[in-house]
């Protein structure tokens, strides 16, 4: 019992330190790997959390013109992101194929997305929903009360990504254009110029035919109807939530950051490593409180252990006197008692070390399971 108490007291602060350090490393790794994120001016934390970790809070939207702006600088590769919609509780990430090359993602099964309507699943999504290439997945409506807004699109599962132990595992990836189709900005329907039903045509001129809202829009993109899918207006005005900017070199990154410093600038450029580091500093201040509590508990337990030893000696006073009377010297008696204490502490130390080795070996998976969603 005494051994167990001392083991626990020694083990807890070290284990906690190890787990927190591992949590910090894992939380930071994704931010460290992502050089820059561009978004609308506002909360950089919301921007980074939505772009890197696919958080629920969608930042104020940008347009594709912001991505074209970065491409035109020739300083950085822009990877537009549109993380807004969901499917069965999992975030739908609209992006381009460059994202997968940037993250080093590999396919576990099936193929990469190729045509409008294709989606690629993160490993955990495929497991939890029991989906494989060739299956279908329907996007969720944004609001039950907005009948004219985002409506469900039946997507085809093209492939499943290898497990990466990152937020990518629980995301559903689609092409940016598919995300716009989900939003209703792109759609497919019959050839309007060939319509015979007068209730489907609002106005017909020589150069244009305006259709009414009665015209049915396809809710699934198939080989037969894909050619009918199109987008209205200028694609540069289409929405995205953020852009991951991958500078070609360090100097280009610095120059690019400088271009967003103007007071009149409506966009912001954030370095995810700095944003997440700031967040973790605040979160891990709680660790100081935990350390203080553990220190108090440790002190109390040490005092209790000393009390137990003292009481034990007191209770065994007659035994000690008996040993002395039968010829054992005081020094030998003291050595016996000291050996008893050392054995107890040594056993605790060994047990503590064993436990620490076990925790260290499973820290990675333990942190993912307990702290990182």
């Amino acid at each position, binding site marked *: 019992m005494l051994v167990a108490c001392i083991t626990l007291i020694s083990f807890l602060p070290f284990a906690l330190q190890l787990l927190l350090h591992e949590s910090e490393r894992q939380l930071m790794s994704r931010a460290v790997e992502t050089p820059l994120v561009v978004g609308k001016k506002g909360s950089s934390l919301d921007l980074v959390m939505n772009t890197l970790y696919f958080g629920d809070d969608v930042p104020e939207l940008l347009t594709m013109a912001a991505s074209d702006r970065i491409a035109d600088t020739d300083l950085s590769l822009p990877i537009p992101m549109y993380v807004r919609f969901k499917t069965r509780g999992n975030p739908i990430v609209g992006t*381009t194929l460059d994202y997968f090359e940037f993250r080093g993602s590999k396919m576990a099964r099936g193929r990469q997305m190729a045509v409008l309507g294709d989606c690629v699943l993160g490993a955990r999504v495929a497991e939890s929903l029991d989906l494989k290439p060739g299956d279908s997945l329907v996007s969720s409506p944004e609001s039950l009360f907005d009948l004219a807004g985002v409506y469900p699109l039946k997507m085809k599962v093209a492939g499943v990504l290898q497990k990466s132990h990152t937020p990518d595992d629980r995301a559903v990836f689609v092409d940016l*254009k598919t995300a716009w189709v989900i939003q209703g900005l792109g759609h497919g329907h019959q050839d309007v110029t060939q319509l015979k039903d007068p209730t489907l045509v609002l*106005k017909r001129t020589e*150069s*244009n035919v*305006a*259709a009414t809202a009665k*015209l049915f829009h396809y809710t699934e993109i198939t080989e037969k109807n894909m*050619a009918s899918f199109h*987008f209205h207006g200028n694609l540069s005005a289409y929405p995205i939530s953020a852009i991951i900017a991958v500078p070609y070199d360090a100097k280009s990154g610095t120059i690019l950051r400088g271009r967003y410093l103007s007071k009149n600038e409506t966009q912001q450029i954030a370095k995810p490593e700095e944003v997440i580091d700031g967040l973790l500093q605040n979160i891990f201040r709680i660790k100081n409180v935990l350390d203080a509590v553990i220190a108090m508990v440790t002190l109390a337990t040490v005092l209790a252990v000393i009390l137990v030893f003292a009481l034990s000696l007191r209770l065994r006073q007659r035994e000690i006197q008996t040993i002395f009377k039968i010829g054992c010297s005081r020094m030998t008696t003291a050595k016996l008692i000291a050996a008893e204490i050392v054995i107890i502490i040594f056993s605790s130390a060994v047990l503590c070390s064993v436990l620490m080795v076990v925790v260290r070996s499973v820290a990675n998976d333990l942190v993912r399971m307990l702290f990182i969603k």
Partner: protein
Amino acid sequence: MIPRRPLTRPNMSSIRWLLTFILLIVGVSVQNSDAAGPLNVYVVNYPLKYFAERIGGDHVRVKFPVAADVDPAYWNPDLADIAAYQQADLILLNGAGYAKWVANVSLPRSKIVDTSRKFKNRYIYTEEVATHSHGAAGEHAHEALAFTTWLDLEFAAQQAGAIAAALSRKRPELRNGFQSNLEALVTDLKGLDRDIQTMVSKNPAIPLIVSHPVYDYFTKRYGLNVVSVHWEPDEVLHNRQLRELKGILQQHPAKWLIWEGPPIPASVAKLKTLGIDSLVFAPCGNVPDSGDFMTVMRHNVEDLRRAFSVTQ
């Protein structure tokens, strides 16, 4: 006392080995620029293939998977073709809405080069195709862009320039070679452009009819007086088309009809009865049966010369 072994001079054999080793190291580093292999370039039409090959030479492997009898503008790739495009080092697009399939597939943006991006503000919206919109105030779908930009040889030179720039970004150590090849190509294009300008200037207002609405950039560049119909060169003209032509001729008394491919003799004969001669100006969107882009364009110009009645 044991005599020490005298120090031996390094023998010639050792020196030779050392020199060989050094030369080998130098040789390997010199070849580093080619160690990466030729760039895998995918294109959406034949003019881009021609430009890329002329500029890139042995440093590019240009792939154009469209069958020879298919119009590349309306070709639809299968999944294997799309995967091949996705794996390319560079994907050269024409822009101006050419290759409709591009709008509905996923291609890595980092590898895409829109070769006409620099002059997109000069795209031509054709009036031939009716657009559509949704509701009273909805935006139109952009189905109506003319896309044979390379027929304006000044634009063709700019598209070639975009290709050279893209290749140079991928292989900066070969920039000088690409630039030199580009200059040679642009010289050829500009030479042809001058020939056409000179030919047209002798008789600029001559009325012409074109068989297909694919000459927008060509007619605008050279200020031609053109009316377009929508006829196929491999189909016999029927009476409705001839009536349509008679109606056009009342306002536009053309003597020449420009076909996009060799017309069948029966159609030529019918046109002759209306006093109209035929000539061919092939847009060259796909690989020609013989020759290359420049030979086809030179042949086009020579045939066109008949309409302008200019002798060299």
